[in-house]
Each structure stands twice: as C-alpha cells, then as structure tokens.
C-alpha cells in the first residue's frame, strides 16, 4: 500500500506513460500506422477493438498498453487519495488541502468521462455522402442528403489538412455560404430537416450531426460535391466538459492559493525539512 501510493511510483508510472505516448506519436506518423489511427477516430474504440483494429496488431497493442499505463496511474491516484490527500484535509490549511484533493479527483472524473466515451453511445466520423444518398442511423432513424451547395472554388476540395490550411483562407472559403441540405426521418415521418454548415452541428434526439467538410469523388465526371459528416452520440460529453472546465478553475485556484507557501503536501514540507 505504501509503495503503491509513493511519489516514486507516481513518477515511475508517469514516466512510463510518457514513453508510451512518445511511442504513439512515433507510430502515428503517416508512413507507419496513421491509417490505423484514422480508423480509431472513425468509430467507437470498442467497435474498433472488436473489429478492424487487428488488421494492424501493433496499433491495438499500443492502445491496450496505454490503457494499462493509465490503469496503473489511476491505481496510484486511488491509493494516494486515501493515504495522502484525504488525511491532509483535517490538518494544516484546509483550503489548500481541498484544492489539491479536488484537482486529483476531478482529473479522475475527466479520465473516466473520456474513457467511457470510447465505449458508450454512437460514433461515425468520416461518413461520406453524395446528394441523393440515404444512410441508416441508430434508433430507426435515416439520414438523407438532399442537396449540397458549394459556391467556393471546387479545386480546393480534396486537399489534405495541411494543404487545406494554406488554401482555405477566409477569402477563398466562406463557411456560411456552403451547406448541405439534410432530412432525418423515422419511417416516413420527417423528424427534422435543415441546412447543415461547418461549425454549426445539428442535434437530433441526442445525436450530433456535424458537417466536417466537403469532398469530391475522384473518378467522376462531371465532378460532384459530397459531404464528410460525423454522427456522434455520447451521454457523457457534457459531464466531461463540465469536469474539464472545473479542473482548469481548480488548477488556477491551486496556483493562486499556494503562491506564497507552496503546496499543502507532505513532500514539500518534508523536502524543506531535509533541505534545512
């Protein structure tokens, strides 16, 4: 118990996670496993793990290693909370103690919200549709793309993210002027319909429909313009954002409250004692 809650263990688990993330940065490069990472983003991680992930086993193995690393860190956080953080609430500066404890606990909520998001709800990114096409959505809904209006220069449509960033300037592309007309039905009844624009998602019964961009099928002549959509439903998104916002505020408050005296933790006091 003492070892699992020690700062050496914390440092060890953080270091291991950093190395693992560094490995992720490396293997996520375009010439290595970027395609697997792309698949990870297209769907819920759970669906990815149970499906296409194993075509490139290194990517799921890396991901499972990451989960293991986070699990070890959470174990350390749990033990630290009980053996170090909670006992401190009764001693010394209560406000500092509370802030320090809450920063850790809210991080736990953020991580849990983030983790749950990988397995709960529905996720479909990079859904490509052309006008006239219909796809089925969860809970008996269907999505039809009625029409697309793209008034900007079509030659910029199929550029990569980096190239698009240099080309899609505010003079070349006006997001408000380009849209997709969509209709959502349940059976024959229209649930909702409207014009979908970039940065203006549509909400349908908890499902967020987002226009991520436009595309043009390469081999078609005359070229048609389609859309890249994202369909995401996640019951914990609000919790995640609230917890994250609170986390930021708590960090800032901790910085302010401990500005003069340092953190209310044993390590600082002990360190001072050793230094003296």
């Amino acid at each position, binding site marked *: 118990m003492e070892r699992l809650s020690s700062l050496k263990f914390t440092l060890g688990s*953080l270091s291991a996670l950093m190395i693992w993330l560094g490995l992720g940065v490396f293997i996520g490069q375009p010439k290595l496993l970027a395609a697997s*990472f792309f698949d990870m983003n297209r769907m819920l991680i759970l669906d990815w793990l149970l499906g296409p992930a194993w075509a490139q086993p290194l990517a799921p193995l890396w991901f499972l290693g990451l989960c293991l690393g986070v699990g070890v860190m959470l174990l350390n956080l749990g033990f630290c909370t009980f053996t170090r953080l909670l006992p401190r609430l009764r001693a010394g500066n209560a406000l500092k103690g509370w802030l320090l404890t809450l920063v850790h606990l809210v991080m736990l909520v953020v991580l849990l919200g983030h983790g749950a998001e990988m397995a709960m709800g529905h*996720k479909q990114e990079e859904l490509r549709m052309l006008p006239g096409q219909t796809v089925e959505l969860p809970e008996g809904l269907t999505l039809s793309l009625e029409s697309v209006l793209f008034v900007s220069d079509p030659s910029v449509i199929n550029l990569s993210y980096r190239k698009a960033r240099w*080309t899609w300037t*505010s003079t070349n592309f006006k997001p408000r002027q380009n849209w997709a007309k969509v209709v959502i039905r349940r059976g024959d009844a229209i649930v909702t319909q409207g014009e979908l624009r970039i940065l203006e998602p549509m909400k349908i019964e908890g499902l967020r429909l987002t226009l991520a961009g436009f595309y043009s099928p390469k081999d078609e002549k005359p070229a048609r313009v389609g859309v890249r959509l994202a369909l995401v439903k*996640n019951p914990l998104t609000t919790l995640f954002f609230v917890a994250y916002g609170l986390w*930021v505020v708590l*960090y800032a408050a901790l910085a302010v409250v401990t500005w003069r005296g340092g953190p209310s933790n044993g*390590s600082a006091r002990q360190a001072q004692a050793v230094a003296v």
Partner: protein
Amino acid sequence: MTLELLLHYIYYACMGATLAAGALAWFAPGNWWRGAGWLVLALALAQAVVSALILNRPPLAGTYEAAMMFTLWLSVLALIPCGSPEGQRRLAALCWWAGTAFMALFLVASNRFYPDWYMYKYIWSRLFFTLRMASLAVFLYASFAALASLGMRPETRTTLLRWSRNFLLLGTAVFLAGEFSGFTWRMQWMGDYWCWNANFLEATLFFLLVTAAAHLPPSWAARPRLRAAAQAVPGVLMICLFMTFMLLEP
C-alpha cells in the same frame, strides 16, 4: 512607410533590445536593465500589434507568429518581481536572451506569416492557439526560473524554485484552458472532441511532463539541482519540440 517595412525595423530593434537588456541584467550594476526591459516590452508589443494589423487578426500559429508571441509573453513575465532582486536579474536576462534567440532564428528561417485560415475567425480556435502559446511561454519562464536558481545563494535559490513551481502550476491551468478550447473547437468542427493523432498525444505528453515535475519524491525535491532540472525540463523540451515541428512543416 508600409506596415511590412515598419515590422522589419521593429523586428531588428526588438532583437537588439532583448540582447542588450539581457546583458545589462546579467552583467551591469544599477537599474538600467529595468528601463531596457520596458523598452523590450514596448517593442515586442509593437511587433505583435503591427503584425495583427497586417494580418487583420492576432498572431496565432506558425513559427514566426509563435516566436513573436513567445517574445511578447516573456517580456511581460520578465518584469514581474519574483521576490529576490538578484534572482530577478538572472531570470529577466534569460527571458530576454530567449527572445533574442527566437528573433535570431528568423535570420535563417522563413519569417512568413501563416495564411488567414477560415477557422481563425472562430473564437474557440483563436482561444486555443492563443492559450497554447501563452502556456508554452509560461512553462518556458518556469524553466528559466529553475535554471536561474542554479549556483545562487540558498535563499535566492529557494525563492526561484518556488517561483518556478508557481508558474508551472499557472502554466498548467492556462494549458488546460487551451485544451478545453481546442476540444470545443474540434467537437463543433469534427463531431468529437478527441482525435487519435500525433498532435493530441503530444499535448497529453506535455501535460504529463509538467505533472511529473510537480510529483518529485521528497528526497529528490530536497536536492536543488535535481529539482531545478526537473522543473526546467518541461518548458525547454516543449519549446524545442514545438519550434522543431513548426520549422519542419512544409
């Protein structure tokens, strides 16, 4: 005179002023360095304002714009009293010389602005880029405070190490606020706030790096050099990686 030409002059003036202010703070007795510091701040601010006028938006991303904003943030932070006059001089000198280094980079690297990407109009993307750069500057400042503590008298050393720790914590709050903005931006744009790619993993790695510096075991934290090194690593490493990636961009 065009704004571009004016910016050109301000750039050289700022580079010279940061170099001189750093030398005055490090070597010269008296308080001339403070005056030089205010001059650096005025020039760094002028540089950012003229750039904003040229771009019709604040400097947000790209190596040149980032270096300019780092210099501005560091010139503000360098003037904040840290509670130890001798420590303050060293710290200010390191901040200004870092500004010189950032400016000097563009004697050889391309000093072009990034084009006005349509996303820059969106408030959450602006917040993301602005807070990301501000947090990196704060982390770098915390690193300099830790490095400035090396070889100082024990009281000054303690003051600077605590100062460094304070700014690591503050930088984390700013960094996380930037991440919050970035998550909101991505969710509105792409449908989900998270993306498995090198950029998101790097950002998480940065956060863990700072977190590790704040979790030193007591026996390690009691060793000033080790503590200084641990607190200096995040800022220095982040800036080096950040600038390298940006310079390597097509």
